């Protein structure tokens, strides 16, 4: 069979049935690519497979929902392993948690530095909660040295922020 648009052999055959009407399209490789029709054999297998896995795991809804900030879908994020914008972290919080968990070898929460502008009581509370959890785990595991260290950090939490800034602010230049 020849291509609908030229005399070359057709390699893509698309049949669409809409409202009872059947529409057939037959295109050669070049015209199929120009029309944006994917040729399965031309795509690397990993791309085909990752699309398949996304479709299966997240379903159509999650894979196609768009971030309000940048318009990307979780499917696009997962495929490229690149996030689109800060808003994506809120828009896709749960599916991203899985991705982050894998990338960070099971670590799931930030316990490091907080930007100075965000040094509010609520953030100290978050930190204290995290430290409490770690302290409980250390005691359960009978890691008493670690537990003592965590207890000290918990006690110092309120003064730590100011101390940290004082000790580093004077070191701007070499």
């Amino acid at each position, binding site marked *: 069979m020849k291509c609908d648009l030229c005399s070359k052999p057709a390699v893509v055959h698309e049949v669409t049935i809409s409202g009872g009407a059947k529409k057939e399209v037959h295109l050669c490789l070049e015209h199929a690519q120009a029309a944006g029709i994917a040729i399965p054999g031309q795509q690397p297998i990993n791309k085909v497979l990752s699309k398949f896995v996304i479709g299966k795991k997240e379903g159509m809804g999650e894979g196609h929902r768009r971030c309000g900030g940048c318009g990307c879908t979780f499917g696009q994020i997962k495929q490229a392993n690149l*996030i689109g914008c800060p808003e994506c972290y809120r828009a896709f919080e749960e599916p991203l948690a899985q991705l982050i968990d894998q990338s960070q070898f099971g*670590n*799931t929460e930030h316990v*490091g530095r907080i930007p100075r502008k965000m040094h509010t009581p609520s953030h100290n509370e978050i930190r204290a909660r995290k430290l409490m959890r770690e302290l409980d785990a250390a005691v359960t595991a009978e890691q008493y040295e670690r537990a003592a260290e965590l207890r000290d950090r918990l006690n110092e939490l309120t003064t730590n922020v100011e101390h940290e800034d004082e000790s580093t602010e004077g070191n701007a230049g070499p």
Partner: protein
Amino acid sequence: MTDEARLPDPRLDADDRDVVLSSRVRLARNLSGQPFLNRASETQCANIVRTTQHVLLNASISEKIIWIDLDEINAHDRSLLVERHLISRNLAESTLHRGVAISGDEQLSVMVNEEDHLRIQVLRPGSNIDSAFQQVRSTDIQLEQQLDFAFSDRWGYLAVCPTNVGTGIRFSIMVHLPGLRITNELGKVRRAAKELHLAVRGYYGEGSESSGNIFQISNQVTLGSTEEDLRDIFTERIVPALLDYERSARQVLLKRNPTLLDDRVHRALNILRSARLLKVEEAMKLLSRVRLGVCLERLHVPLPQLDDLFIQIQPAHLRQHVNCALNAEEELEIRASLVREVLKDAD
């Protein structure tokens, strides 16, 4: 040879220079309310450059700071910055609007529009993670007074790639591991590194091959620990263990067959001192053997001079050295001539 070269190198043991060429600490930061670069328009990329350039030049992050608009300079100048490890290959080859702020001493550089909006890095010679960390932290504090970085309670500093989320911090050391290479122990190092969630990369970082037995070792985990804890694990456990391993391998070579070792290092030195054409790979390989000989005190060449030679023989630096474009053969010739000149007094 000069008297200076005959004296034992006082810097041989300082900062573990026998194994560690340099230390680097870097932070990944992104501006809140802005799309990441993979979703940003040309105008948005240009705006990020404009905003951050202004802040970087006015935030007093260093006594002297130079801004380089990477769109404006040519490929040769960008290569010079890559060879000095001041920018990544990624940034040099990118087609986005991008730039870099570099301190006068070339130890601090802030890349704009690399993978993240900002990559703040401090490089120090030898094993100096602690002081690099101090400077990167103080730079971060100063920049955040004028820039709002994307941050979440759950995941900390938000990054383009999930591998950088949280602290956004990467500690790395550039190490010379000829002992482990010759004793065929590098495979074990790679396996141990994988178990400890460390990345082992080549001379130019991500995606590059090892050259001259030089490797970059860095942490992969950036979430779930404080920056200080990550640093302590790196400097108190990882680095000392690696150094011990390499030094033991060197001692094994020395004890097992000192003549073979001497043959290896002196043969390398003499090829370097007589070659008239040198490819960069061959030069790196031979310099690696000479460096091993220097560190085991079988040869005398000032180590800082030798380490600088690793940079000076790179293509863009050679071109800079003669201040004109070089064809392929001229490049080999100039490299050989430079190496002969630097090593003429070695013994």
